[in-house]
């Protein structure tokens, strides 16, 4: 009993510490007043109506969805091909190539963003395609880390069995490799999507006149506190949570399937 009490005494403040800001954000998006400060009044959906009617926010939302989808798809595709190539063929200096692909995970977003801004200035104007490139740079190592471990011995044996039964390399790839990695591919895509969707620094530095949603929200904050910001933040949060849940569900299913 005493241990349970102690556990709760530690756990509850910790959970409050983590979730209170998010809950506050969500709560005051429903606040019926001009400034999101206590005491809470309402609820009202007025602010949601306002942001959905705000063309800057809607176009930024579309831009964010586009950038996240495209950069996640590119990252996952490149990571899959890199993983397949490195795992299934003898590559000279394999360890170095692996390290080179994973390295950007350790580099700060600010450095990556500045680097891209400097490198591409003059080549490509600041725009959404440049943000896509930036997000691929950030997310490719992540997608690679998730997918590369899937190319294990069991996976290799399945491919070997398929070849033995007469499958061509293309048939092995499309009928064995991709379907057996389906869950990892979905998980990697969802994670890359979430990261891109939330990402501010690179998007801020590279997006130019077509800002993504986090950049627009940051712009709103500069003009002062407004329940609209809370409403927009809540929408961003909901999308992230949805994708995080997708990852969790698929990974959980995989763990359960592995037990069979």
């Amino acid at each position, binding site marked *: 009993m005493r241990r349970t009490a102690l556990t709760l005494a530690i756990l509850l403040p910790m959970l409050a510490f983590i979730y209170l800001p998010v809950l506050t954000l969500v709560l005051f998006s429903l606040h019926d007043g001009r400034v999101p400060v206590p005491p809470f009044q309402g609820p009202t959906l007025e602010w949601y109506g306002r942001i959905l009617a705000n063309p800057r926010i809607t176009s930024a939302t579309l831009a964010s969805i586009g950038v996240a989808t495209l950069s996640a798809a590119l990252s996952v595709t490149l990571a899959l091909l890199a993983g397949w190539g490195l795992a299934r063929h003898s590559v000279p200096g394999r360890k170095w190539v692996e390290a080179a692909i994973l390295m950007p995970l350790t580099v700060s977003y600010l450095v990556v963003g500045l680097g891209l801004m400097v490198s591409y200035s003059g080549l490509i104007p600041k725009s959404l395609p440049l943000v896509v490139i930036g997000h691929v740079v950030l997310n490719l190592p992540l997608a690679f880390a998730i997918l590369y471990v899937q190319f294990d011995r069991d996976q290799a044996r399945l491919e*070997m069995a398929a*070849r033995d039964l*007469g499958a061509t390399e293309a048939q092995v790839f499309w009928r064995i490799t991709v379907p057996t990695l*389906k869950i990892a591919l979905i998980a990697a895509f969802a994670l890359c999507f979430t990261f891109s969707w939330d990402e501010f620094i690179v998007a801020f530095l590279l997006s130019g006149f077509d800002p993504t949603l986090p950049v627009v929200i940051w712009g709103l904050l500069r003009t002062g506190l407004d329940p609209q910001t809370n409403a927009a933040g809540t929408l961003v949060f909901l999308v992230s949570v949805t994708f995080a849940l997708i990852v969790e569900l698929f990974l959980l299913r995989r763990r359960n*399937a592995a037990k*069979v």
Partner: protein
Amino acid sequence: MPQRSDLSIRNASKHFGPTRAVDDLSLDIPANTYVVLLGASGSGKTTLLSILGGFTAPTQGQILLAGQDITLMPPARRPTATVFQDYALFPHMTVAQNVGFGLSVRHLAKPQIAAKVTAALEMVGLAGFGPRRISEASGGQRQRIALARALVTEPAILLLDEPLGALDLNLRRQMQDELRSLQRREGRTFVHVTHDQEEAMAVADLIVIMNHGRIEDHGPPERVYAQPRTRFAASFMGDSTILPAAFGPDHADTPLGRLPTRPMGGSAVAIRPESVLLTEGEGTLPLGLLTVTERVFQGAFARITGRIGDTDLRLRCPPADAPAPGATVPVHLARNGAAGLAD
């Protein structure tokens, strides 16, 4: 439709760095033979199977099938099919899709695939299992699915890598019988790798005993068991008493006296425990008085260990006849009971 598919391995070697997994090995396997490659782990039997399947290129040597050189032919085009040790069934496909995979990648028409899959599943006793998922299949069923998946492509040679290793004893016995009768019915060459000598004797037409990448002995199970060629073969295939011997033209002088046998070039003879008898019979030879040191009951028979002078000797007898430890009994060598060995 049986085809002429004599398999010939000519001077095959596979080196992994300084290790010779397969060392200048030659073997001819006539068509429609059930071959068992028998050996301990590290004997090179799995590497040899992998060379036959096209997964490993030999460092030297040739593999000929019906006279055609297939040494460098990739697995996809090779007329071999493999049943892998862990079966390597495709987890994202149904049983029927697994079995039909080899036909579907060759773009056969769907109704044709369905008919062949149904026939193959029937052949391995899994009629009606087609729509099930692989995760629903038991170990024995997975084994049969893997077998059906390989056989449906009508390979000239079926390669089986420790196919029964994951099954419990009863199921293993049953599958041995089924593999044997399947090979008879299908009329293909089966090359089966195992470390289990009882399994080898139960299924094989031809046993190939391997050690250090070389063939120690090969021949029909009866011959390999009764007259093992080398000391290694004699000790690997079941229990043997191995005695040092000096050979004459038709006999060997051993610590147990002069025994009739042919010299094989070595300096030892092997005596199987069932060749040592407690009673005299036709053509038997007295070996002397055995002092029993140990008696182990093993169900259908008892295993007796004892000594004649300084020589340890093992024998088998019906449990009812088994002398107790400490007893001294006369023992006899059965006719042709001693086998001269090569080194």
